[in-house]
């Protein structure tokens, strides 16, 4: 492969020199020959020159392409260098390549390029049924994963766990969680059995995967998996994933100037380390902590105006509770405003909320369930608000409020007291 335009330039020069010599020689040595012969020679030479010119053109285009590609990579390199500090100047980008390394051979590619894509590309021919799979599984997999793929000790559970993904401790198995069957085939083929990776035949891998599907009740006991029906298997949780949405959901909220003073009214310890000495000298289990949260001190904001501002305009409400409510309301602030000049944001303004008809704030576009409550004349009471705050989507199915709910009853009471302190 040609290296650069600099290499092409001399080549074009040499071609031109050759053409000039050809003309000179032809007129001297073949002077006695007929004009016709000369004309043929000239035509040939002209043809050669045209071809050479075309070649030179192609070569120049190739050189230009390489230059452009080089520039493109140089730009990427420069951008990367500008975006980050480097202890060395960025690596240069040459035209063409370094001609390092050697061509990969077919056998080598076949040996290492064995990954399987979600659409089944990369699967070798083969097949295996549930019965065979059970035999292979019991022999090669069960010591860690259990005879029924239920997992031994801390080793992964491969079956079951359906409908647990929203629970406190989700059980993420091939059946309940894995979105693509190709992942199971690929991983078992390349990385299992643990300590004997790469020893399974394609048929054994098909059989093991068939057995794992069966263990998850995703196929019947007479099922046979092969390269032919592989992509027909539907995975339970194939729709269970979204691409990283932190930029929209989190960065948008958390790229703000943070509070520096009086950021909270009070701070208490709510939980203490479970394991006190994590790695005891003698090894073994970590030492548990016997301390309780009540043992810790309570920190308060030194500025006591925080707790008193709301009390002036409220009758019979507990100022401490209102102050606590103001603290709890921070979790609502990203969507709701309350107090002087409060306006509708993602959620409606909340002044004078208690005693008001549900869904009645002017100018706010409510969800259907709120519009229905409004039509029915339902009113916000401490009780209905408490129920809503504890489980928004449970009490008002279809609400646009994506908040998961307030966990602590004390926080709910405090929030209601706080909201009660704001007149319409």
């Amino acid at each position, binding site marked *: 492969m040609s290296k650069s335009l600099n290499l092409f330039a001399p080549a074009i020069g040499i071609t031109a020199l050759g053409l000039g010599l050809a003309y000179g020689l032809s007129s001297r040595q073949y002077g006695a020959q007929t004009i016709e012969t000369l004309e043929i020679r000239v035509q040939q030479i002209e043809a050669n020159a045209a071809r050479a010119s075309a070649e030179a053109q192609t070569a120049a285009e190739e050189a230009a392409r390489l230059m452009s590609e080089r520039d493109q990579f140089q730009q990427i390199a420069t951008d990367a260098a500008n975006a980050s500090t480097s202890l060395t100047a960025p690596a240069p980008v040459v035209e063409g390549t370094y001609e*390092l390394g050697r061509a990969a051979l077919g056998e080598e590619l076949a040996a290492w390029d064995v990954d399987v894509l979600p659409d089944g590309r990369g699967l070798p021919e083969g097949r295996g049924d549930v019965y065979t799979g059970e035999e292979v599984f019991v022999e090669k997999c069960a010591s860690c994963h259990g005879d029924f793929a239920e997992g031994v000790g801390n*080793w992964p559970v491969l079956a079951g766990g359906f409908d647990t993904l929203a629970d406190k401790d989700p059980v993420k198995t091939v059946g309940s969680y894995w979105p693509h069957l190709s992942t199971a085939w690929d991983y078992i083929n390349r990385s299992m059995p643990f300590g004997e990776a790469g020893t399974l035949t394609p048929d054994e891998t098909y059989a093991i995967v068939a057995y794992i599907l069966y263990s998850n009740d995703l196929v019947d006991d007479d099922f046979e998996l092969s390269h032919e029906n592989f992509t027909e298997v539907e995975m339970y949780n194939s729709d269970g994933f979204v691409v990283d949405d932190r930029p929209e959901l989190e960065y948008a909220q958390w790229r703000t100037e943070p509070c520096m003073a009086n950021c909270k009214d009070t701070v208490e310890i709510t939980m203490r380390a479970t394991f006190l000495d994590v790695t005891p000298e003698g090894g073994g289990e970590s030492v548990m902590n016997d301390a309780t949260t009540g043992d810790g001190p309570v920190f308060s904001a030194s500025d006591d105006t925080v707790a008193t501002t709301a009390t002036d305009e409220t009758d019979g409400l507990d100022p401490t509770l209102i102050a606590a409510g103001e603290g709890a309301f921070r979790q609502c602030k990203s969507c709701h405003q309350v107090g002087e000049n409060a306006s509708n944001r993602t959620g409606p303004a909340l002044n004078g909320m208690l005693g008001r008809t549900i869904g009645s704030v002017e100018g706010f576009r409510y969800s259907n369930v709120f519009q229905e409550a409004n039509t029915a004349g339902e009113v916000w009471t401490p009780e209905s608000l408490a129920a809503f705050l504890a489980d928004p989507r449970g009490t008002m199915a279809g609400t646009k409020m994506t908040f998961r709910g307030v966990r602590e009853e004390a926080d709910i009471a405090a929030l209601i007291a706080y909201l009660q302190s704001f007149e319409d």
Partner: protein
Amino acid sequence: MDEFFKPSRRAFLRSGAAIAAGTVAGGAAAQGTPDPKITELQDWASYTGAGVDETPYGLPIKFESDVVRRNVEWLTASPISSINFTPIHALDGTITPQGCAFERHHSGAIELSKEDYRLMINGLVDRPLIFSYADLERFPRENHVYFCECAANTGMEWAGAQLNGAQFTHGMIHNMEYTGVPLRTLLREAGLEAAGDLSDKWVYVEGADASSNGRSIPMEKALDDVLVAFKANGEALRMEHGYPVRLVVPGWEGNMWVKWLRRVEVTDMAVQSREETSKYTDVYENGIARKWTWVMDAKSVITSPSPQMPITHGAGPLVISGLAWSGHGQITRVDVSKDGGITWETARLGKQGDTKALTRFYLDTEWDGSPMLLQSRAIDETGYVQPTKDQLREMRGENAVYHNNCIQTWFVNEEGIAENVEVS
């Protein structure tokens, strides 16, 4: 000592020893008794010490023998597929010495010599290539400092304060100066004409160990700042970090930093390997999981005082020290609170300009001997402010396992003993 505030035995022994020593020296000074360490001839000032070459490759002095990586046995099924923790509580500056930088293996650390090493570039490239280790050393190379953080760092803490020590809550991180070849140089050597439009292409990177850990990386990142590294902190990579060659994927989760890198395949879709579907995906409260959550968001932790680093000197001048980092670029500011987040002070940062690297911060302060709830909060160049645990839980619930970058709280009592807690 209040039994509720019992520190770990090691912390206790260290603080006890320090307090004892302080009592002797301080008491002696108060009584005007000369310090025998000064007035009496000491062995080390009289006898000769170790000769050169006594330890051809030096190790830390025996007094630092407790500054080591630690594994929490019960966290994983087997140390072969497990993780340990960098002793960040005992380090200062920013560079992590290789010998105490955390390890994460899926099928154990392997011994792969430079002579046996091969790197294949294949898939949608013009020329599938094989490089030897010696080939890699002939490409222009760069030096960069980057942090590598496991996506599961602080993962135990989602459900509440668990492990008592910065090493255990935040120690799945290290920060090294890497020497390597930009991945884009190698991709260009193999040629990307065959890949056509690069905007929707991927590279699949794979390790040579039995786990054959593989991850899909978008082409844009692959061409940006990814390094094929063979040196760390000036010397060869350690076995446990992928000797002789590992991938460095700046700012992105550690699992993608494939060790013993053996293959880079250009593909037209993500492979959806085990490590990017069944693991390293974040399940949220409703059971839906986020995938492709590659970037490690801004995070910080106070390393001293901390549970393994109690205050042993009593009231007076105190250096509060810690680490901050962001996968989005530079750390621009770190705030420290002593009262659990009511008030914040801005800390002093180390060297400016490092991107996707650890930044050291100090708050040089006076301790009055009263209890503290210590927190730190990092802000990066995008303006992102490290969130509280409550903010993260509100957004994601408690089952995400990965990407917990919450503000950490240490409760320091009157005696200077620190404990991992959660606060209101």
